[in-house]
């Protein structure tokens, strides 16, 4: 179904599509104008992302895109590292075990600073065999120098994909991106999306200009043997790139908002009361449920707020400290756990608050594993129980 009348020039069409479709169409905008390479291997629940792109290439709608059908995720990332090193925009997508299969190369892409964009449809690891949402795969590459963005709905997944190319490929950043989508809740659920137009995309996202590229006439070697002291230097520069990304994200979002009017936050999105007895911090789709829970608590006279992490790497430490100043106590939702310790996000929120000198009660809850649905009612119950010291 397409609803199209009197659309502004930055929108090409208004349609009801899945998160996978929304991501693929945004990637197509980035891939269309200049030479580009896609290499990917299908895995539930990511398959429709690359099927859609394969369709567009097959139909001749991406005439400058080389689509490489590879035999595994390991090869998929290897192929796009090659194309990225060759100097062209590069894209792949995966999920859970697909990511684990490409894992050997994940460090090469991140620490090697190949600005590849890769939607990661967050799916639980096995066993037991499970194809539904969990954030374990998101955290599995946390420390390998990838930017990490987390979408809350299909529209944001669409917008975020284009924004990720812009941030990744910037010469002060040069880091790959994952765009996280909750399996099935976003990947396979249709919702209205305003598709950005090609003319908007071309204005917003310039041609990728590599700093180095593989060229026999001016040979370079990527990631060769490196001395211990030299390793420290290039690792330190990754943190510089991450800090630059943080500044750039702010600039990119304000440019994006200026044209589209859409702003779902930069590092975080804040919802609810400015100063609240309880705040909830989370990321992904259940952050929208958390907003409804905040409303529900508000109706009961409980002052509550929600902070959604939109950019997970670089981590919004400053924004979390700000949240600590807004809220009397904080509940952190984790859709995964660092087994033997605690939910990863809870640990990072606590670390940030400590760095900021904020001493308030913080509690982490691990829930929603393996696709368990967590609704706003349940989140409201958790928050109420925490206020009553009953959690």
């Amino acid at each position, binding site marked *: 179904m397409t609803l199209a009348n009197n659309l502004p020039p930055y929108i090409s069409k208004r349609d009801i599509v899945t998160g996978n479709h929304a991501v693929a169409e945004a990637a197509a905008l980035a891939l269309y104008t200049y030479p580009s390479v896609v290499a990917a291997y299908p895995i539930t629940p990511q398959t429709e992302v690359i099927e859609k792109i394969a369709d567009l290439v097959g139909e001749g709608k991406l005439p400058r895109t080389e689509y490489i059908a590879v035999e595994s995720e390991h090869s998929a990332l290897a192929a796009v590292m090659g194309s990225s090193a060759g100097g062209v925009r590069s894209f792949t997508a995966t999920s859970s075990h697909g990511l684990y299969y490409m894992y050997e190369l994940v460090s090469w892409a991140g620490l090697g600073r190949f600005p590849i964009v890769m939607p990661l449809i967050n799916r639980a690891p096995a066993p037991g065999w499970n194809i539904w949402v969990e954030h374990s795969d998101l955290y599995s590459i946390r420390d390998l120098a990838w930017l990490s963005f987390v979408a809350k709905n299909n529209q944001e997944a669409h917008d975020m994909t284009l924004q990720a190319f812009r941030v990744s490929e910037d*010469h002060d950043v040069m880091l790959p991106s994952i765009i996280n989508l909750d399996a099935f809740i976003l990947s396979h659920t249709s919702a209205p999306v305003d598709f950005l137009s090609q003319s908007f995309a071309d204005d917003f996202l310039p041609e990728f200009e590599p*700093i180095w590229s593989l060229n026999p006439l001016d040979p*370079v*070697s990527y*990631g060769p043997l490196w001395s211990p002291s030299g390793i420290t*230097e290039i690792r330190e520069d990754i943190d510089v790139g991450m800090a630059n990304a943080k500044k750039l994200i702010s600039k990119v979002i304000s440019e994006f908002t200026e044209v589209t009017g859409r702003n779902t936050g930069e590092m975080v999105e804040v919802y609810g009361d400015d100063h609240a007895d309880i705040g909830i911090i989370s990321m992904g789709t259940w952050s929208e449920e958390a907003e409804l829970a905040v409303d529900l608590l508000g109706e009961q006279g409980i002052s509550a707020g929600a902070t959604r992490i939109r950019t997970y790497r670089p981590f919004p430490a400053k924004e979390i400290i700000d949240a600590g100043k807004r809220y009397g106590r904080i509940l952190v939702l984790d859709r995964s756990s660092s087994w033997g310790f605690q939910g990863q996000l809870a640990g990072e929120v606590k670390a940030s608050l400590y760095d900021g000198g904020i001493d308030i009660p913080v509690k982490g809850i691990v829930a929603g594993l393996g696709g368990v649905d967590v609704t706003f009612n349940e989140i409201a119950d958790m928050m109420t129980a925490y206020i009553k010291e009953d959690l």
Partner: protein
Amino acid sequence: MVKLPVLKPIDGSAGRTADWRTVKPKFIQDKCTKCLSCWLFCPDIAISMSENVNDGFPVFDDDYCKGCSICAEVCPRDAIEMVPDVGE
């Protein structure tokens, strides 16, 4: 500008690697047929061959030949012999 783990090839980024060797090639020109085997197999690009240099016979780089002896092994005419090269 970011610091990427990318290197441009230059001679001797690891220093004068010939210091590592205990043997060095001794070239016996009479036996050489200029077949290029030594040039092809040298893992350190320490053998150069050019029509205009040394009458087209191989030239051994005394700074970067590590004395691995591959050239002597692959030479079909035994035109390369490894001889001791122990530093002072």
